[in-house]
């Protein structure tokens, strides 16, 4: 099993890479963070005795992706799975963020994801089953004021994954959209989740379990994976309640928790 993982040096990327390594799969890891890639490569090789290949790549640059594909073709590597983890998130009001930072959310979360997905689907192992995972978000289920661009960029991935799944059904491939609530990946995510109080904690799911179940479900041919019973309920209500009402409630809640989070971040220095 040859697997390519984008954003592999981040928290969720590392967790999925570890889960793949545990299953003995061959890994090709990419990230923009070269030092981070080296560290996780080293850790996985030492823990599981597997060989891990890495490629530093800025997925928003088509030149970078072309270069990486040239290396992949040179070694005639063909893939059985693609895990699209690379993504970013800036919180805050649309006008309180810099213009290019807002645009960057879409260039990384959506445009770059399309670029690498297209490139790797062209390099799937002939005659084999193929699996693609997109990391959408629980946020994709609702309009989310103060996380407007992020949530919309994740909605794009959810809809795209659903359509692509249909297109590829006849070609022995499955596409899964992972829609997690909170995942604790870094120290500052702990703070952010605490700032959301009760709702932050209860929508948070254990990273290692989400990683395992994501692969299980993707291989079982599922379309969407929303971790956690409460998150599934919330996403259900997201479908039946009028979207403008949801937006009002979300706005009210985020205004409160963001204030708290910003104060906490300031006092923590």
């Amino acid at each position, binding site marked *: 099993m040859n697997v390519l993982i984008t954003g592999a*040096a981040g928290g969720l990327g*590392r967790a999925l890479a570890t889960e793949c390594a545990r299953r003995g799969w061959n890994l090709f890891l990419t990230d923009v963070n070269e030092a981070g890639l080296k*560290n996780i490569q080293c850790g996985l090789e*030492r*823990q599981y005795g597997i060989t891990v290949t890495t490629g530093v790549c800025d997925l928003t640059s088509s030149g970078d992706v072309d270069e990486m594909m040239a290396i992949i073709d040179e070694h005639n590597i063909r893939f059985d799975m693609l895990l699209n983890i690379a993504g970013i998130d800036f919180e805050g009001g649309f006008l309180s963020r810099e213009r290019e930072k807002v645009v960057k959310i879409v260039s990384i979360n959506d445009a770059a994801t399309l670029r690498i997905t297209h490139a790797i689907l062209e390099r799937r192992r002939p005659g084999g089953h193929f699996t693609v995972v997109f990391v959408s978000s629980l946020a994709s289920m609702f309009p989310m004021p103060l996380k407007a661009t992020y949530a919309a960029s994740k909605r794009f991935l959810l809809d795209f994954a659903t359509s692509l799944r249909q297109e590829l059904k006849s070609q022995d491939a499955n596409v899964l959209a992972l829609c997690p609530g909170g995942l604790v990946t870094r120290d500052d995510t*702990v703070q952010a989740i*605490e700032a959301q109080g009760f709702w932050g904690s209860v929508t948070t799911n254990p990273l*290692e379990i989400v990683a395992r179940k994501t692969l299980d479900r993707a291989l079982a041919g599922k379309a969407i994976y929303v971790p956690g019973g409460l998150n599934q309920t919330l996403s259900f209500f997201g479908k039946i309640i009028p979207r403008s009402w949801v937006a009002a409630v979300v706005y009210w809640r985020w205004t409160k928790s963001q204030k708290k989070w910003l104060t906490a971040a300031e006092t923590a220095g």
Partner: protein
Amino acid sequence: MKTIVITGATSGIGLETARILCRQGFRVLSVGHSKKNCELAKADLLSGNPEAQLTCFAADLMQQHEVLRVANELTAYINENCGGELYALINNAGCARNWYMTTDEGYEQQFALNYLAGFLLTHELLPLLLKSGGRVLMTGSESHKGIKVHWNDVMLRRGYNPLTAYKQSKLCDILFAKGLNDRHSADGLRAYVLDPGLVHTDIGSKAAGGIVGVVWALRKRHGVEPSVPAETYAFLCNPEREPQGLYYHLCEENTYSKEVTRENADRLFALSERLCGIRYESSSKGAIA
């Protein structure tokens, strides 16, 4: 003047230990998580003792690349200013994590910081420690009893439980001390583990999260002040004595888990050497003691 390195020395047990050891005339090299914490701790120590010989180093010790970097800095400093001799290394830095979180290498954070960082740092500083027939000390915990090392899943990826991860990391600390004594006591090196008891510190508050943070906030109220375990560290660092035990509480030898065996220590050494990409040479005096 003898030199002692203390990790996690900017708060809690580490800070109080640094305070006592400075007062007793040791040169203290402290390692803290951030420059800011280091400066605050230094100002605190110097305000009560302007003569203190204290130098601070900042490093995020749960990341192996950071351990290696700070080990190089410490080695250079000790070679230049301390005659290349390190009298004692206190591996005290530790954390509690409610959630399964990993380091840059993908290692579970409590295992990585509470145990593995000390294993790697000790290896890097071993030549300096052996020169002075030094001591290696670890902050352990009574909670290491009643648990075994999960050999097949040492990072506890299946069924992660914060308390199990914490307890296991502390059991590993004692196994490490035992393995060090097995390998290097013939060279004059001694390793000890200290049981601090329940101490009023912030270990369960810093980025621990969830239920761990809540439980710790309640529990720590019943703890002793960090200066109490610091006294035991001072006792174990006293060059006029050479305590022969392995595990100490309130300056007295204590019993430890039956899991602390030669076989388990060797098994942990082999695993940890692989996870760190290093190899502990056996005693330079030939046969393992």
